[in-house]
C-alpha cells in the first residue's frame, strides 16, 4: 500500500528530476515550442516542494491536490494547468484514504489523464504529454518499472509525429523529427514513481 509519504517522495523526486533535466526540456521546447518548458516546470515543482514542506498533507489525495494547485498557480505556461489538472484530478479520485493500492493509483491516474485530454482536447498521436501518459497508465498494472519503460517509449515515439495541439501545431510538418517536450517531462514524472517506491524499500 502507498501512503502520503510515498506521494510526497514522488513529488520531491519529480522536483529533483525536473531540476536535473530542465535544460534538456527547454532544448526540446526550443525546437518546436517557445523554449520555456524546463524553466516553467522548474518554477512549478519548486513551489510544489516548498508547499509540501510547509503543509505536509496526511493523505495521498491531499498531497496531489495541493501539488496540482501549486502548478496551476505558478507555472505561467500551458504545462501549469495541464500538469495541475493531472495531479488534482488524480488526487481527487484517490479521495481521503490514508493508504491506497497500486491498482487504485492506476485507476485514479487514468481519471487524471482523462481530465488532461478533456482540458487540452488532445488524443494519443497528437504529439503531446498524452503520448507518454496513456501508455504509462495502460501498463501501471504491471508495476512501476513497466510504466516507466512505457512512458519513455511513448515519449520517444512522439519524434516522428506531426503536432496537432499547442504552439508546435502551427509548425505543421516542421514539427516532425523532434521529441515533444511535454511527453519527455511526463516520462520523468512517471519514472519518479519507481524512484519513490525504491526509496521506501531502501
Amino acid at each position, binding site marked *: 500500500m502507498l501512503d502520503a509519504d510515498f506521494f510526497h517522495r514522488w513529488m520531491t523526486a519529480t522536483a529533483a528530476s525536473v531540476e536535473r533535466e530542465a535544460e534538456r526540456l527547454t532544448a526540446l521546447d526550443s525546437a518546436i515550442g517557445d523554449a*520555456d518548458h524546463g524553466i*516553467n516546470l522548474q518554477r512549478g515543482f519548486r513551489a510544489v516542494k516548498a508547499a509540501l514542506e510547509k503543509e505536509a498533507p496526511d493523505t495521498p489525495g491531499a498531497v496531489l491536490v495541493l501539488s496540482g*494547485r501549486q502548478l*496551476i*498557480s*505558478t507555472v*505561467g*505556461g*500551458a*504545462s*501549469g*494547468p*495541464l500538469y*495541475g*489538472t493531472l495531479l*488534482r484530478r488524480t488526487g481527487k479520485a484517490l479521495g481521503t484514504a490514508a493508504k491506497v493500492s497500486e491498482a487504485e493509483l492506476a485507476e485514479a491516474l487514468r481519471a487524471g489523464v482523462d481530465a488532461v485530454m478533456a*482540458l*487540452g482536447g488532445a488524443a494519443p498521436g497528437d504529439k503531446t504529454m498524452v503520448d507518454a501518459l496513456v501508455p504509462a497508465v495502460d501498463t501501471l498494472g504491471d508495476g512501476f518499472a513497466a510504466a516507466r519503460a512505457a512512458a519513455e517509449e511513448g515519449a520517444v515515439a512522439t519524434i516522428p509525429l506531426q503536432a496537432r495541439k*499547442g*504552439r508546435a501545431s502551427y509548425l505543421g510538418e516542421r514539427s516532425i523529427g523532434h521529441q515533444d517536450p511535454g511527453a519527455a517531462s511526463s516520462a520523468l514524472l512517471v519514472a519518479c514513481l519507481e524512484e519513490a517506491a525504491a526509496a521506501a524499500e531502501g
Partner: protein
Amino acid sequence: MNADKLVGIVLVSHSAEVATSVAELARALAGGATVVPLAPAGGTEGGGFGTSAELISAAAATVDRGAGVAVLTDLGSAVLTVKALLAEGDELPDGTRLVDAPFVEGAVAAVVTASTGADLDAVAAAAAEAYAYRKV
C-alpha cells in the same frame, strides 16, 4: 437592469501590454464606457510573457458586481489556465464564464454590450458573434 450590477469583463493575454491596450481600445471604441468593470490580466506576475492564475483570479474579483464575469483570452495557456481555474470551483467569482470569442473584436463587443446593462448571456453572445464578421 441595475447599473450597479453590470457584467464584469476580464481580458487575459500572454502579454501585459496586449491585455492593457485591448482594454483601453475597447473602452475607447465603446464611447468611453467607463462604467463597465473591466480588468486586464496580462503576462506573468514577474512581468514576463505567459499566463498568471493569480492575476486572473485577482482581476475577476475586482470586476465582479454580482452579475457575472466574462473572461476573454488570447492563446493556449491563457485558455487552459482559465478552464483549470473554473474547474477548481472556488478560484473565480460565481457566474464567471470563459467566453469563446476573438480577443480584440470580442472585447469591444463585450464592453459595448455590458455598458448597456445587458446580462452575461447577452455579453457572451455579442462577443462570440464577432467570429462571424468576415474581413475579406
